[in-house]
């Protein structure tokens, strides 16, 4: 018996302060605990950070996504979280990543338009576009 699979894409504003080094360390710790928790909860996904904002894809069973999002939601390290997409999927897009990471340096060009749009109106962001961009980035870095 397989459980229904869901995918959630959200966008949020960074509330991390401090110099680049401190921010990097904080992201490191977010990723570390995400990987630990997500693996246990059967959640996979990818996180994008470009200095001003986060975008994240979470995939997994409904209950697991809800519990994980509740945890993320209340995290003071970001704010203004907006869900861009939440739907049922037939397969995982990030099956091998409990939390893949795409930083600003990974592909500046590809994220430029997202960052530009989002700076003005996060609701104009398209969940699908973020999902595709994240996937494309990971495919590139896998080739590299």
């Amino acid at each position, binding site marked *: *018996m397989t459980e229904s699979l869901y995918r959630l894409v959200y966008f949020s504003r960074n509330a991390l302060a401090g110099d680049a080094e401190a921010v990097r360390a904080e992201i490191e710790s977010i990723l570390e605990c995400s990987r630990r*928790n997500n693996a246990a909860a*059967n959640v996979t996904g990818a996180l994008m950070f470009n200095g001003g904002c986060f975008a994240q894809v979470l995939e997994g069973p409904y209950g697991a996504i809800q*519990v994980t999002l509740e945890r993320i939601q209340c995290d003071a390290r970001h704010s203004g979280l907006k869900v861009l997409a939440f739907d049922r999927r037939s397969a995982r897009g990030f099956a091998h990543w409990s939390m893949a990471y795409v930083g600003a340096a990974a592909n500046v060009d590809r994220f430029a338009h997202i960052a530009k749009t989002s700076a003005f109106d996060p609701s104009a962001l398209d969940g699908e576009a973020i999902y595709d961009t994240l996937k494309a980035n990971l495919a590139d870095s896998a080739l590299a």
Partner: protein
Amino acid sequence: MTKTLRWENLDTGLALLDERNVVVYANPAFATLLALETVSGRPAITSWACDLGPDTRQTLERRLCSNEAGAVTLNEQAPNPVTLYIGASRDGQRLVVGARGWPVADDCGLAAQLDPLTGIGNRLMYERHLATLCEHAVRPAVAALMIDLDRFKQVNDTLGHAAGDELLRLTADRLRKLTREDDVLIRLGGDEFLVLQTDARQPDAAHGLAQRLTEVMSRLFLIEGNSVEISASVGVAMLGHGTAALDDLLKHAALALYQAKGLGRARYCVFDPDLEARALARHQIEFDLRRALGLREFVLVYQPQNSTRDGRISGFEALLRWMQPVRGPISPAEFIPLAEEIGEIHAIGAWVIRSACFEAAGWADPTLTVAVNVSPVQFENDNIIQIVSAALKDSGLAASRLEIEVTEGVLLTESPEVLERLWSLNRMGVSIAMDDFGTGYASLSYLNSFPFSKIKIDKSFVQSEHSSRSQALISAILAIGTSLGVTTIAEGVETPDQFAAIRAIGCHSVQGYYISRPMPAEDVADYISRFDPEPFLRHAEQEQIA
């Protein structure tokens, strides 16, 4: 594995999970309890949950996804249900204990003190806890934070009760995350929660938590796939900081919550004793107001309205006074808004109309009119028509002698029903005057929406008639009145100069202290018979010549 070997023989069901919730080991008692043949090596959810209903399955899933400790009762309807106690996840391991009937056996009153929906305490737990606090010799530092969701009803109405319940559960989870172990969490009922903070540094701890609560509750909830945005208001009361008795804690937190809601929600307020004094005063006046009519504490006083042309009395305005035996006379500006809010205005307003009609019917001069103020609230239903027609019929007053004064507020809602009610009165022969014109929303279109018989120019214009601005306004109102065929009356005329100026500018009538203060009903007859317009006219004419 000596430990595991001993587990083999235990009656209690035990299972060990890895960090992915895969069963690493389960003892025979556990397998028996869940009626499973193989348990080890499979994910806990899929192997344990195959016979469960969707709700229990979801609860189990949620508990397993969370790293914290929790319990799930698997088949609650069964006579002796199995409960799984899921330990907190530590270093990629967690222990699950399965047993039958524990929640009932391990009662000590706890089950009765828990809210079944959210798993946090209920009112009974609050009372027990309060009782324990009362026993403390030293006064404990307790803060009560009362939390109310701001748009819960909308969620319930638009997404359904299941979604509402889910929101309450998630709210309880957020409260759990934000509070410390020894804080007490209570669901008071509906969408109202309470956190009792004990042994914390007050007032800082309560301020901090209240701040964080309002912030976190305004963050999005994911419910049945919908993004739900609500917010919460919080009321805080602290022992030793404005609240002296434990018993008052909840009441004070509720008052502060009420204030937070009043200030526009999504915020917290801390109780201050002035708040209680104000609430008490309001409560008292409300109590008195509800009884005032029965105790005959209201009286009507009458102020003459005079023609500017010949100075003669054309009628009287009936003005309401509340002679409160303890507080003395209370002005309508103070009690009418309250009466409107608590609905008492309907009874009071009906009494005013009836009394004024009976009084006017007794005046010697059958041409004199009587003007009565009617609140917009009284126009909210059709009763106003019955009230007026019965008052006219019973008193025998001609409909043409009654004038109903309404403010711009009556037309504000632009409701066709309200307009129809005005028309019904108009068809009876009652005239309708527009009161306080120019002070409110002053839309000229209101004047066009109904054939008002009179426009009453507010006293603020009359009394600042030296300013060229109000001069211009008065002239404009008079011009509008003339072109619509509506008579005009200036109120608040207090000095000979004001009278002369209003007369010179062409206003039809005046009312104010200069002619006479409002008088008791029993003085009206005498006043009418003695009234002499001569001195007023003479003075005004001299003024004009000068």
